[in-house]
């Protein structure tokens, strides 16, 4: 599924290209409480992202790929959804990827598979 090819990306984002928060491709996004009424008021692209995130916490990349919404547009729309309290952006995205307690947990998890 791809986004509507006739609509330019800046129309979908209201002209915005940047987000206030750092949204990494692997940052997890989740829906706290799915609200169908609220969903019905969203643009088609934002609604696809909201509906998909309601299935379970997923990365920005997964949401972008599954909804056929380009990564840049996905970031802007997710931030809108977070600003209106529809989705929760995982705060861990703001801690260091080199945090040794995180690295140790990943290493321990992988060791069980090696």
């Amino acid at each position, binding site marked *: *599924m*791809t*986004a509507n*090819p006739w609509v330019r*990306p800046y129309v979908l984002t209201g002209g915005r290209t940047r987000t206030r928060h*750092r949204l*990494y*491709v*692997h*940052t*997890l996004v*989740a829906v706290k409480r799915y609200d169908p009424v609220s969903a019905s008021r969203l643009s088609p692209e934002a609604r*696809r992202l909201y*509906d*998909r995130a309601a*299935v*379970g*916490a*997923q*990365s920005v*990349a*997964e949401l*972008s*790929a*599954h*909804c*056929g*919404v*380009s*990564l*840049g*547009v996905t970031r802007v729309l997710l931030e809108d959804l977070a600003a209106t309290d529809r989705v*929760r952006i*995982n705060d*861990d*995205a703001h*801690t*260091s*990827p*080199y*945090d*040794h307690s*995180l*690295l*140790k*947990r*990943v*290493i*321990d*998890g*992988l*060791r069980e*598979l*090696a």
Partner: protein
Amino acid sequence: MAFASLPDRLPPNVTSAKIVVAGGFGVGKTTLVGTVSEIPPVNTEAWMTQASRSVDPLNGTDAKTTTTVAMDFGRLRLAQDLILYLFGTPGQPRFWPMWDDLCRGASAALVLVDTRRLDVSFPAVNYFENDSDVPFVVAVNLFDGMQTHPLEQVRDALGVAASVPLVTVDARDKRSAVRALLASLTNTMEKTSPVPSR
């Protein structure tokens, strides 16, 4: 819309980490991501704006017409509250802005090389040596399960510093691929300070 591969419901405080798998075209990035991932690797062309399948990149002389990008990512649930994402970089140099984006927030990088075609991975090695802060490890993909060159010979040919670990991997074998990922994370532990700098 199609809900083909529904992710599990996750507890509220889930953490994600990311490892970037880089290297030239055809060195086994997609294979490695697919071997380790619990979901089929997502190959997405819809990432960049105006994904246009009608444009054949081989015919295009104008860089602006080739806005599609094929790249893969996979995911591995390591604990109830911990997910590891693997991102394979798009091979072509024109996607370097995308590499910057993929590498931001990565815990480690694995640069795959094929000893029969070392040159295709030169740009990736260069990138991590000069243009990225993400600690990296070079992994020699054993295509026929056989090591054809001593690792030190590969190191010389690639021109990578002695401080960069070199490992071998069979990208088709899950345990082997996981061990290569472990080597990349162990390297990051050694190269970074235990206390996060920010």
